């Protein structure tokens, strides 16, 4: 195995060709948490969902909150990357792969939480065998599996040239592995043209699919007649929240990857600044939807809705609600609204805040409604047990672990796209800008 250190972009190959002690220590630590979660699940599998904090009427708790949360995070990737590609945002090049990888990996954890929540996980495939299209849960199954397929292809296709680069650098089983995955890529002009068409088509297809995913996730709640679930704005509200938490997760991962693999030269403050601005826009949009939702409920004053409303505002869920307001609105707004704090550290703090906040938001949507039922005598409580906490921790740990392993197998920054940017896009962009100007000949169509 050889490392051509004098080559340009050598640092992008480094994580794959060299692995330090730090990687193994971190991986072992994460694996330990994952195994602990697995142990917790074996207990739940054996004794039933009674080992969780769920009850009647709070039939859904942590698992469904995590489901909505993880599926939300998945919107970081493919959606953001597709939009940036279609807008020809040149600064996208070092971050698209990172984003797409989040999507593909995190979707498994979203779907996995639904399996955790099932009383009969052994019958999970009944949704295919006996699925009723009238059930919003089946809409989820269709939408999420389509999204997983599309975003996996969307991650893979732009990987092909990079896999070919790796194929030419390694020996042994890895050469066979990359050789198989590179699909005979040699980098001819014809192949490049086809690749570009494929990426553009995928980017367009993936956007409506991504939007459909969180829309139907919200519809699981909105299609019931339960107070503060039965809301027409839930579709767009959830999509906005999903993109919001997704950008947050992307910024956190960008900062970690940048630090660990010393990619300061590729992922620059400007990327954090631009994504920080996007995050700021999402802060405002999220606030707009939240405000609209709560004001409509409050003004209508329907008693069953108000019971849920007050449980959130000043009842037993007030810590979660106001925690959400703090972490989803006040902190990110204060940090991101000006360029002095919209630094790398600033955007990362805002992103961590948003990620926690969006989990709280999902929780305050799922649980308070179930606790405050229409009929007056079923008021419930919900206290998650160590099983649910362990599985939450295990899912986070496994996600990070898989992400780390991915960076060891494939370049986490798209090498060929960086090179394309360096070699071709500068001239193209100049031409394009000229084309925008009056009196100039049309540059790029």
């Amino acid at each position: 195995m050889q490392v051509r250190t004098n080559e340009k972009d050598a640092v992008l190959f480094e994580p794959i060709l060299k692995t330090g002690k730090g990687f193994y220590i971190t991986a072992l630590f994460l694996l330990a948490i994952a195994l602990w979660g697995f142990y917790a699940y074996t207990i739940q599998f054996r004794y039933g969902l009674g080992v969780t904090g769920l009850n009647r009427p709070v039939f859904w708790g942590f698992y469904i909150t995590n489901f909505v949360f993880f599926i939300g995070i998945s919107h970081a990737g493919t959606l953001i990357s597709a939009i940036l590609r279609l807008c020809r945002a040149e600064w996208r090049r070092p971050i698209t792969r990172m984003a797409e990888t989040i999507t593909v990996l995190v979707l498994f954890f979203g779907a996995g939480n639904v399996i955790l929540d099932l009383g009969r996980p052994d019958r999970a495939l009944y949704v295919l065998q006996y699925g009723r299209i009238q059930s919003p849960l089946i809409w989820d199954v269709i939408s999420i599996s389509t999204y997983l397929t599309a975003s996996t292809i969307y991650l893979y296709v732009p990987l092909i040239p990079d896999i070919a680069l790796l194929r030419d650098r390694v020996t042994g089983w890895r050469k066979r592995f990359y050789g198989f995955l590179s699909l005979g890529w040699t980098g001819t002009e014809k192949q490049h043209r086809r690749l570009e068409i494929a990426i553009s088509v995928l980017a367009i297809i993936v956007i409506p699919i991504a939007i459909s995913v969180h829309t139907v996730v919200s519809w699981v709640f909105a299609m019931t007649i339960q107070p503060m679930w039965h809301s027409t704005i839930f579709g767009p509200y959830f999509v906005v929240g999903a993109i919001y938490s997704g950008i947050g997760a992307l910024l956190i991962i960008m900062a970690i990857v940048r630090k660990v693999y010393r990619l300061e030269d590729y992922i620059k403050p400007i990327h954090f600044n631009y994504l920080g601005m996007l995050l700021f826009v999402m802060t405002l949009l999220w606030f707009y939807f939240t405000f609209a939702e709560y004001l409509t409920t409050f003004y209508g004053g329907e008693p069953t809705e108000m019971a849920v409303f007050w449980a959130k505002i000043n009842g037993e869920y007030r810590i979660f609600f106001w925690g959400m307001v703090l972490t989803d609105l006040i902190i990110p707004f204060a940090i991101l609204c000006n360029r002095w704090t919209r630094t790398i550290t600033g955007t990362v703090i805002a992103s961590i805040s948003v990620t926690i906040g969006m989990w709280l938001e999902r929780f305050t949507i799922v649980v308070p409604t179930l606790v405050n039922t229409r009929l007056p005598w079923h008021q419930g409580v919900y206290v998650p047990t160590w099983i649910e906490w362990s599985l939450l921790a295990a899912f986070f740990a496994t996600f990070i672990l898989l992400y780390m392993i991915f960076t060891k197998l494939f370049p986490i920054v798209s090498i060929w796209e960086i090179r394309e940017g360096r070699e071709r896009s500068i001239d193209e962009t100049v031409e394009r800008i000229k084309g925008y100007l009056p009196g100039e000949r049309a540059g790029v169509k």
Partner: protein
Amino acid sequence: MPRWGMTIDLDKCTGCQACVVACKQENNIPFSTPEEAEYGREISWIKVMTIAEGEYPDTKLRFMPMLCQHCDHPPSTKVCPTGATYKNPEGLVAQIYPRCIGCRYCANACPYQVKYFNWYEPKWPEEIKESLNPDVSIRPKGVVEKCTFCHHRLQKAREQAVVEKRELKSEGEYVPACVQSCPAEAMSFGDLDDSKTEVARLSKSTRAFKALEDLGTEPKVIYLKEGEWRAG
């Protein structure tokens, strides 16, 4: 096809819980513990709900037995991903235990909270196991269950009618355990569409109301509000 329905006269209900015990015995409802029951884990297809009204000394305790309302438009069956819960041709909201994946979506969608989940493997003391009802299947852990209007009794009654080559009577022949056991005779059961039955007559009473009527679920359990007894 008869439209099986129930009326519960709240003037007559004494809150004695006989219906609850009869139901548990009839339908092989597993035992719970006080702690689990306190945490909302106990299974009880019918429950006598209480509402305390007024302040001491002018207080009043009201009772309202709550069971599956067997809605004509059930919000719970709509959302089931596998068709495990559905409205059967006779209008009863049924649950197929071997088909249920335990997602509890139906339990969340039901505005009456009358769907119950098996949080654990069902348990009975050894002595009780001997007297489990052979007509009712034992539910495994991880599935949702609910009042069936003692559907197994309907099957038996119908078979009997077939043997005797006659129509099933629209009242009196098929009666759920709760109705049968009510000492105050507060509950009636029969075909709501047959105007000769007691349920049909009572369901048209000026005291008749349905729980959460404004949701449009069209329950087939009809309550008669308190009034006559107090006014008289």
